[in-house]
């Protein structure tokens, strides 16, 4: 989540707006896909050739480029497994997330 914020969040109490009109939220309570993912992709660096097929297919754009391989941003990865299915070198496998 970006911490950049140009303006303070709207404060209905300060602006005198009644609290029974349009429902609005003025506090951020973000939930990222990584908070509810059930399967996690693991990249085998020896097999990865940086062809970028995973990067192209990832629906949430969570593939991160490293010097010699592609990695996953686990904050935003939802565990859909499309990268593992599409990888032509079978360099990505999905493993179950376990409870801590």
């Amino acid at each position, binding site marked *: 989540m970006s911490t950049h*914020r140009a303006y303070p969040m709207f404060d209905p109490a300060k602006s005198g707006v009644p609290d029974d009109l349009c*429902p*609005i939220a003025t506090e951020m309570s973000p939930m990222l896909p990584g908070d509810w993912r059930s399967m996690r992709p693991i990249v085998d660096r020896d097999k990865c050739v940086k062809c970028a097929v995973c990067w192209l297919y990832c629906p949430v754009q969570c593939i991160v480029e490293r010097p010699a391989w592609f990695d996953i941003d686990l904050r935003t990865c939802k565990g859909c497994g499309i990268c593992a299915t599409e990888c032509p070198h079978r360099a990505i496998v999905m493993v179950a997330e376990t409870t801590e």
Partner: protein
Amino acid sequence: MSTAVLEKNQYAATAKPRHIVCEGNEAAALAVAMVRPDMISVYPITPQSSLVEHLAKLVADGRMDAEIVDAEGEHSVLSVLQGASLAGGRTFTATCGPGLAFMFEPYFRTSGMRLPIVMALVTRDGITPQSVWGGHQDAMTVREVGWVQMYCETVQEVLDTTIMAFKIAEHHDVMLPVNICLDGNYLSFGAARVTLPEQAEVDAFMGQTDVNWHAALDPLRPMAVDPLTGGSGGKGPATFVRYRKGQCRGMQNALRVITEVHEEYAARFGRAFAPLVERYGMEDAEFALMTLGSMTGAAKDAVDEARAAGKRVGIVKIKTFSPFPIEALVKALAGIKAVGVVDRSVAFRWNCGPMFQETQGVLYRLGYHVPAASFIGGLAGADITVEHFHRVIEQTEALLRAPAPTEPIWINESD
């Protein structure tokens, strides 16, 4: 469609009141142009289509500086306007029947978000049986969705009510969407003489647009609009109740604001309409008819003739059906000995007309028993004639002596 009234110099300043002859759909479009909306989104559907055509022409001719969005369907139409309203724009749309049905999801959300969007509901009967003709079934079906609904009697009232609708919707004590209900066929296509208000007077009447002071899509005031309130076990349901009560408060405030705006309009433009309930010939009436919308004209003619023949009958016409004008009706019906309620739609669950169904609750508050009958007529565009109303008057008068029927009386059944 008359084109003469759409000439560019139509609104040129003149001291004389300007009269034109136009259909109800055109009257609504002209009224919309006069309140200077920022965005209009529409999808054509019979009998509303010519209203869309008039709006498009007003914009194409450079007489209305509004964005027109031709969305791919009514669901998108109202969703587009929600965004425009949250961005601070004055907005308008029009639909009916199946179009309203397709619009239902954003239609419900509009009142919950307290967006003062104005919509002409060119009332159409409910399909199926297949019908593209007038009736109140579409408007009655959505009477519990938190919109203000006002039914017009004449083309002039369509024009004036459309202007007033924006002022009512945008009033800070109301902040609710408003339907102007104009009868499909009879008002949508019925041509009549109307008097156009002066543009400068309308501008002064409307004042500044201020529609997103409570919730906005505005980078300078960041907020999340319409978030999930949360489930049972937390504060979610209590939050939900707070907003629902707010909607009910807005609806009750609307009864007062509708009355005030009608009074202000009458003082400024010289045309007065009953805001909630109109009483016609009720001063000494022993029994009454209740009507809604354009049928009232024929009812008034019949009542005039009946009164001339010595019958003590009057009319109570409802203009504002939502919020339901309970107190005004209690006053209007006090002392009456029998009521015949004429609906142009069906309340399937109660086997009567919807207005009859709701009126029963008002009769209960009178504190004495009033025999009442439900008449259903004008379905699928059928005409309720003066002769029909004479029969309604006879059958309502009979309630003074004989027991009330337990089933509705279908006016056009044997036409």
